[in-house]
């Protein structure tokens, strides 16, 4: 924490007023930016609560005159994504069905991998880690075409298991990195002591490392969940009607050209799509930020 409240004591009165003015200016600037960041969310929420009529005649940032949940109902169960008009509900559950297993599997594998890379080093372990790490950074466009063909060959093209598979594979680099960076801070002597005590590879992992891992599990789960829930590229490339995740469905609703443009429904659908990750952010923001910074700062 840096504290710059101390200034040389010349003309105390003047600096005091200057400081108060500066302080107000500071809060003003911060407030303006807070409005900038909040405005889209505010507009989304208010728009979703307005009727189409009110949207057409009213003001973008005005509060709704008559609050109505019609748009939410339509968005949840009636909005059209192309031909089908079931709302985002089925796609919301698709996203859940994709995200939950994919997060669980990639986190578990990441924990085991990180444990190996950090504490059971063998010849070549460094190279393997570097290769996995680099895998985090490739633009996924280079794997889209062969993956589409492979999923076809495996018979899971356009299915939810196919999407789970894809998310696990391309999440491994990050989950391994997270756990590895966490486990290297655990002293090697702990592993040695457990070996002398007679514990083996899995026993040490289960009895000693896993009980220590709660913070990094939370970080990893949040990171993976956010990534997978918000994914669009894999969703749009590897799904078909009926298995699409919510991001794809939302995009289809917003860009469907049939009928009247229902902005309030679009906004309600967008909020529904955003709710799970927003909720995670609000509940566990600390871990969310830790994941973000861990994923970017530590190489």
């Amino acid at each position, binding site marked *: 924490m840096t504290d710059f409240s101390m200034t040389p004591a010349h003309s105390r009165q003047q600096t005091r007023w200057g400081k108060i003015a500066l302080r107000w200016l500071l809060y003003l600037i911060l407030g303006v930016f807070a409005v900038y960041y909040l405005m889209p969310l505010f507009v989304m929420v208010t728009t979703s609560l307005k009727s189409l009529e009110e949207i057409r005649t009213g003001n973008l940032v005005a509060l709704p005159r008559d609050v109505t949940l019609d748009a939410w109902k339509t968005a949840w169960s009636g909005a059209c994504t192309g031909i089908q008009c079931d709302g985002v509900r089925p796609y919301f559950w698709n996203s859940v069905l994709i995200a939950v297993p994919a997060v669980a599997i990639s986190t578990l594998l990441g924990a085991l991998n990180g444990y190996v890379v950090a504490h059971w080093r063998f010849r070549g372990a460094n190279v393997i880690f570097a290769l996995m790490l680099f895998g985090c950074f490739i633009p996924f466009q280079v794997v889209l075409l062969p993956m589409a063909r492979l999923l076809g060959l495996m018979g899971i093209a356009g299915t939810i298991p196919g999407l789970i598979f894809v998310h696990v594979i391309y999440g491994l680099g990050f989950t391994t990195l997270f756990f590895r960076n966490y486990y290297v801070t655990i*002293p090697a*002597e*702990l592993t*040695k*002591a*457990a*070996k*002398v*005590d*007679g*514990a*083996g590879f899995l*026993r040490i992992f289960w*009895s*000693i490392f896993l*009980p*220590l891992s709660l913070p990094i599990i939370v970080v990893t789960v949040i990171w993976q969940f956010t990534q997978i829930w918000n994914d669009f590229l894999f969703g749009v490339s590897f799904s078909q009607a009926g298995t699409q995740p919510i991001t794809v469905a939302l995009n289809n609703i917003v860009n469907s050209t049939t009928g009247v443009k229902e902005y309030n429904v679009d906004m309600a659908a967008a909020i529904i799509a955003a709710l799970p990750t927003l909720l995670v952010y609000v509940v566990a923001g600390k871990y969310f930020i830790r994941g973000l910074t861990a994923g970017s700062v530590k190489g």
Partner: protein
Amino acid sequence: MAPILDIKNLTKNYGSVEILKDINVAIDQGDFLVLVGPSGCGKSTLLNCIAGLEPISGGSLHIGGQDMTDVSPKDRDIAMVFQSYALYPTMSVAKNITFGMKVRGVDAATQASKLATVAKQLQIEKLLDRRPGQLSGGQRQRVAMGRALVRDPKLFLFDEPLSNLDAKLRVEMRTEIKELHQRLGASMVYVTHDQIEAMTLATKIVVMKGGVIQQVGTPSEIYNRPANLFVADFMGNPAMNLIPAKARSDAAGTRIEIARRDSAPIVLTDSQNRNLPEDVVLGVRPEDIAEPGARAAANAQEADCLVDIVEPAGADTYVVMQLGGKHVTARLHAETDATPGKAQRLAFDLGKVSYFAPDTGQRLN
């Protein structure tokens, strides 16, 4: 009886780097072996090799007469205490101590009785439900010892177990470890960089440097007859004075000539013909330079020396002079009247000196 630990021609490489070179050590049941040396000398690696935590690249290793060269740590019948104590942070003290037994499938009743015995022995009964994070350094140390004791192994291994403690506690725990060793009659291997720990605890010391054993011997052998300049310098505090000198041997004995600043050289006569080369390094412990008649000496040779610095240290007073171009420390009585800038008459005990070859550093007498 076979040695409890027998290491033959052990080598250890990391890639092309030789960490340990041709290590040969053996100890008997009840021995307290201390591996001592500066950091990076390979002593901890050697201990890890004994524990089986590091594979060895060559040679063999027997514990209790059995070949353990390729046996995993858990089957070597050893217990180990680590520098950081390596207590399992999520387990209580009791679970830390019984974890090994649990892994081995020892029944609960035996676990409980052994735990109780060890806890009593180390006076940690009140701590059993705590987590390591709630313990002080000294308490953690005891728990780590408890985890080793409860195994009742053939061989105890200690990896710098006292180096994380503050100075006072370190001395206390040192005494406790020694007492424990005497009471149990157990065999121990102990790594430290602290030569006082080595001297006080060991029945046998191995001094290492650069992955090579410099000398193996009892504390008194190591202290009184260091095998080379490195051991001479490393063991003892204040360190042994190592003074370049000229030697001339004949039937009457050996004349040792030490150059001095601003005055004629000191000439000392060793009564024995040592067959020394002309250039030697004379090794004298500070306590072997004292006031004339202060200590019983086999062959005291007196000389006047100009005192540079006087350092009272409570029980003794150290006096620093310059001889042969080196600072030389003498250990005098606390009440000495030595004064900086004045000459002081000192007696050199030539019965206890060591001679080293300046080029190879090896002991000559």
